[in-house]
């Protein structure tokens, strides 16, 4: 037993120096390689990488460098005024891809606010459609029974309110959201023209009439943009099963939600979202409807 312990201890003592962590004075990560001298065992890192690591390790230092770059008369500021990045400012010629992490949060917010869009929330358009009766396919499938569900699946206002509240909660943090009712009369008139075209605008189709109305808005303020929302609830022949032939059919009900953000200045679609839920005409009380709207706005962007 003692002999075994002795052998084990010797083996550990021999192994430990080999496994010992080798840390350089700067605390940077090490790639152990087999070289003759200790100082040659550290892989040389580019200066940008070292600076980045240092700023990351010491946020106070990062802030001081950012503050210095903001000071008037700074040579770096004149060279890259839109870059608050300390790494880039320290070395203007560098091509580092890391600097975004080091940007001062206050400066980023200020820059965003200055370029913020003023999004006018148009009244959503809600359409109920009913397709009745299917036909036999050539395989002799039976004619499905017409869907007898109540045509208005819910009050139009309920759908509108859900869409508006979703837009307010999802869009407001990212851009300045304006209520149509609170605008001045020239803007309200232009919005009224656009609201008549909501169903096509929501899918990103901007026709001549819409372009001229958007130009009217842009003349008032070039930062104006509109958010058009459209819901189509379609009911049709339901699902069926014929036990004699084995034929089956799926319901033709569907729910379509379309939203588009369109710039007043350019008349172009900035962002577009679309959700098509097949086989279901969702009521405003259905959780699926709220979920669909939330998912719709998930990737909302004003760029």
């Amino acid at each position, binding site marked *: 037993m003692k002999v075994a312990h002795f052998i084990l201890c010797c083996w550990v003592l021999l192994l430990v120096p080999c496994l010992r962590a080798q840390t350089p004075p700067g605390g940077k990560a090490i790639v152990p390689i087999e070289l003759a001298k200790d100082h040659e065992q550290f892989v040389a890192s580019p200066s940008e990488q070292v600076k980045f690591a240092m700023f990351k390790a010491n946020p106070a230092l990062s802030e001081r460098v950012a503050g210095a770059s903001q000071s008037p008369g700074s040579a770096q500021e004149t060279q890259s005024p839109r870059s608050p990045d300390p790494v880039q400012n320290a070395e203007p010629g560098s091509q580092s891809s890391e600097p975004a992490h080091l940007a001062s949060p206050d400066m980023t917010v200020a820059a965003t606010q200055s370029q913020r869009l003023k999004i006018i929330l148009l009244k959503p358009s809600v359409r109920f459609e009913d*397709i009745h*009766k*299917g*036909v*036999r*396919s*050539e*395989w002799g*499938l039976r004619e*499905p029974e017409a869907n007898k569900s109540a045509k208005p699946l819910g009050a139009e206002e309920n759908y509108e309110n859900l869409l508006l509240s979703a837009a307010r909660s999802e869009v407001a943090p990212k851009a300045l959201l304006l209520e149509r009712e609170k605008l001045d009369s020239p803007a309200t008139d232009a919005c009224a023209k656009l609201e008549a*075209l909501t*169903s*096509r605008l929501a*899918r990103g*189709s901007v*026709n001549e009439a819409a372009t001229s109305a958007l130009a009217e808005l842009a003349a008032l303020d070039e930062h104006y943009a509109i958010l058009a929302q459209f819901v189509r609830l379609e009911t*049709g*022949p339901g699902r*069926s*099963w014929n036990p004699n032939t*084995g*034929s*089956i*059919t*799926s319901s*033709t009900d*569907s729910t*379509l939600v*379309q939203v588009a953000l369109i710039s007043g200045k350019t008349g172009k679609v900035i962002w577009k979202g*679309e*959700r*098509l839920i*097949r086989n279901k005409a969702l009521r405003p009380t259905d959780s699926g409807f709220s979920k669909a709207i939330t998912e719709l706005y998930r990737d909302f962007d004003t760029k």
Partner: protein
Amino acid sequence: MKRALRNGFVVVFITVLCPLLSEAKKKEKLPPDPRFAAIQNISVLPVVDARAGKKAGVNLEKLQGGVVKTLKKKHYSVGAASSSGEVGEVAVEDIEGADPKYLKKLGPSSERWVMVVFLDDVASKITFGSTGNAELRGFLFDKDTGDLIWKDRGVGQAGQGGLMGMTMKGMMKGAALEAAVSSLLASVPKRPK
């Protein structure tokens, strides 16, 4: 003897009655609307893809051909147009609220009656088998008068249950589209030969 007379009477009765009934049935099939009777040639424009969501590949030319074929079965003189005309891209909203000025630019300038068909949706899925759904909507205009002669929507459903049905998923879209074309044009009256 009596039996032979009775059989003979039945045969004569059927021989006389059948042509009368068939003639009466033929008379019912005449188009009730004179606007349909006046149609000389319908130009079917290329099918407009008005689908939302992810769009699976559909042969729109084949669909246009299906519409032409079905109208021909109803004894209309029909031709497939290669473009939508001067209007360019056609939207459902443009067609629903079309004014005569817009209609003049729709389809070939030489054609008076033009039909526009929109493909609203087509999808197939696997359940306990496989199913397919398709939706179409169509409009027929008289460009000279600026009137909307006919409009309708058609839905087609197809499907087959079981393991066999699952293997047939690839055929469901086509079957649903065929059914949708039949459903759409069911309300177009059949013309006499």
